[in-house]
């Protein structure tokens, strides 16, 4: 039926029409025994839902498989070291709920190890939880906001010992504390974006800035996101469709250390479906405070990926695997801290999964709006638009996608827009990576002409 290897009509598209698909025993298999342990009955046979994993595994194999993926991601990438104080971003949805659960279980185990170990050499990492209150810029769903936050508090307090701090932080806190018009500015900023996709993307970025601020204020050393395979698959297509092919590989790795506080994705290999199933099996309470509906281009992609996933249950994984073959950036790796004993210990476990890093660290410039790495040839933007200092520097250092879907085209509107940007964005240009600037200056020192040479 399908053109197994023909190059008929569309040249390159046609060849190799076969996709790599995971050949999982489908629903047709009447086998009620778990495929892994071959002892217990499957989840579905007990009436626990009838899709995907529930048809193949018993509860305990399913759970240990899922936890195993989390644990592998954490150890292979040395995501958490004993002296870390990690911040788990919790939206109330199933993915971040599972992330929180697993991080807690990991912490519990290392606490047990710590207590069992006589010399108590390795401390137990700390865990905090953050919920970003976006009610300033997003419609809360029908779910009662205050009630949801109360429930979250309860979830977090039940996950102890060890005790975890819970931060509820409004998005407008990214504006400095002494200006009490943060919320207004934020509102005006968001509503000045006409493109719905651009609006949504900026909000997502502001969420990250909020998390970064909490981490900075409360001395967290890592931020843990519940981003799963399904979400990353969408992200891959979103970036592709928005012309961000160059920066895409920065966003989809286990580690993203371009931020002041590195961000890690331990659920990168877990499917949305699996995470939701675990939540229902373990009765992990979730509360969708903001409706997670995506709009515009992002919404279209969510629908498309859902369709593809229905057509082939391994599609999301294949998409992520493709993007995983793209070359990551130097910051997709945790900065090495040579004084730390524990890092050395965890490095042993990193084995080959570590990114090879022989060449000198390349210098990247980042989009002033979305912080994605810029391709050198794309940074030569016109300097004509906008009169003000800030708007000019924002425009000159923004990616083509942000220029199209976020920044206003017209000069005075752009000026106004830039005046509304929160300090973390406007300061990025100046202070973001001071070291890098110094480093660059050093490297180009010998090529620079002094002012006196200039006239000759």
């Amino acid at each position, binding site marked *: 039926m399908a053109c197994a290897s023909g190059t008929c009509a569309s040249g390159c598209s046609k060849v190799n029409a076969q996709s790599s698909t*995971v050949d999982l025993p489908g629903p047709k298999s009447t086998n009620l025994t778990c495929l892994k342990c071959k002892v217990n009955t499957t989840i579905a046979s007990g009436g626990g839902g009838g899709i995907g994993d529930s048809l193949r595994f018993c509860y305990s194999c399913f759970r240990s498989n899922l936890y195993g*993926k989390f644990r592998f991601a954490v150890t292979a990438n040395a995501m958490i070291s004993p002296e870390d104080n990690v911040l788990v971003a919790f939206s109330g949805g199933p993915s971040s709920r599972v992330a929180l659960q697993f991080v807690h279980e990991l912490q519990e185990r290392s606490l047990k190890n710590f207590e069992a170990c006589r010399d108590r050499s390795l401390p137990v990492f700390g865990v905090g939880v953050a919920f970003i209150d976006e009610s300033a810029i997003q419609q809360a769903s029908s779910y009662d906001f205050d009630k949801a936050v109360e429930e979250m508090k309860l979830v977090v307090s039940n996950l102890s010992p060890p005790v975890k701090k819970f931060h509820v932080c409004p998005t407008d806190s990214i504006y400095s504390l002494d200006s009490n018009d943060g919320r207004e500015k934020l509102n005006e900023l968001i509503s000045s974006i006409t493109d719905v996709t651009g609006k949504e993307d900026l909000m997502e970025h502001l969420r990250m800035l909020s998390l970064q601020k909490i981490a900075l204020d409360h001395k967290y050393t890592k931020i843990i996101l519940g981003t799963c395979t399904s979400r990353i698959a969408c992200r891959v297509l979103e970036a592709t469709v928005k012309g*961000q092919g160059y920066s895409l590989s920065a966003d989809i790795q286990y580690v993203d250390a371009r931020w002041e506080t590195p961000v890690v994705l331990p659920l990168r290999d877990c499917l949305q479906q699996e995470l939701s199933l675990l939540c229902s099996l373990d009765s992990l309470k979730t509360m969708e405070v903001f409706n997670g509906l995506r709009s515009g281009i992002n919404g279209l992609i969510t629908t498309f990926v859902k369709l*593809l996933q229905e057509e082939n249950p391994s599609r999301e994984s294949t998409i992520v695997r493709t993007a995983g073959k793209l070359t990551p950036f130097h910051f997709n790796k945790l900065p090495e801290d040579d004084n730390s004993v524990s890092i050395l210990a965890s490095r042993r476990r990193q084995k080959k999964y570590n990114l090879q890093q022989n060449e000198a660290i390349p210098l990247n410039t980042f989009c002033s709006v979305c912080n994605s790495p810029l391709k050198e040839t794309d940074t030569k933007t016109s300097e004509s638009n906008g009169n003000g200092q800030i708007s000019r520097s924002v425009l000159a250092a923004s990616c083509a996608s942000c220029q199209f879907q976020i920044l206003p085209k017209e000069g005075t509107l752009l000026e106004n827009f830039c005046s509304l940007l929160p300090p973390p964005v406007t300061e990025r240009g100046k202070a973001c990576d001071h070291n890098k600037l110094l480093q660059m200056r050093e490297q180009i020192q010998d090529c620079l002409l002094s002012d006196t040479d200039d006239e000759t």
Partner: protein
Amino acid sequence: MECSVKSRVKVCSICNHKRAALKRPKTLQQICRECFYDVFEEEIHRVIVDNQLFRPGERIGIGASGGKDSTVLAYVMSELNRRHNYGLDLFLLSVDEGITGYRDDSLETVKRNEVQYGIPLKVVSYKELYGWTMDEIVKVIGLKNNCTFCGVFRRQALDRGAALLKVDKLVTGHNADDIAETVLLNILRGDIARLSRCTSIITGEDGPIPRCKPFKYTYEKEIQFTYAYFKKLDYFSTECLYSPNAYRGFAREFIKDLERLRPRAILDIIKSGEDFRISTSTKMPEQGNCERCGYISSQKWCKACVLLKGLNRGLPKLGIGRSRGLNTVSENGSKDTTKSNGVQSIESKQCGSLDF
């Protein structure tokens, strides 16, 4: 981008003079007919010049199926060659698969193009190259696997025809939508090697005859609807008789939806395809030559020869399906096997579509 409700006539936003006759699909600019032809053709000219697709004195074969893309391509190539003195010798190259009724009509279209544009036409047929017409193949193998044949045979037939014409390059009518779709499909399939090459405007420079795509940035809508409609170009709708799935695939539908929401998305996908950070070590398998016919092949025998051998021996299933049936184990330990069904529905151009 809502049009303001005004009763007065819209004026072309390029010449500011004539009445705007269309909203340009690529930019949504409202322009007049003449300006549309101008920008359409000049854009293609720029693509040709900027990418140095041709050199003066070269012999160029135009893959001509009689379909819209290749008909417009033949027209634009002859027009630009004359207007900008490319100094090219142009040839139309068609493949006659031997599908009674259907192909006859589309070949008639190509023959009229030959006269209209004054470009000599060469037709190579499956019958003369392989000893079999498509009709005969279908009689033996049924409708099920014929795509394998028409794909493999057509690609080779084009190369052989090009060799007979002694052309330096082949140009094909692949448009921006086709390329955007290919980028997406390669992502969906995990084919990183093809992903790294599929946006190249020139391919096969290591092969016998390089192929290039002057329509790489040209929107299908502009080719298909507006252009062919306004210029009344003579083209033939190439919906294949033997194509078992003549419907549009998911990916194409998706691209059309995207285009509706944001016309520049098609160009953005192509840009992404060009910009992906792919290490140069992801190469295609070594190409050798077929021991039987000399055509480029990574195996001992080329695909066409394997298929022919099967046909001639009365074992038509030989060579159909996967040649590299390697099972690979992915990171999470799940076994990757290949299955060929379920994939077709994501792509649009089935083999049966006879447009190049």
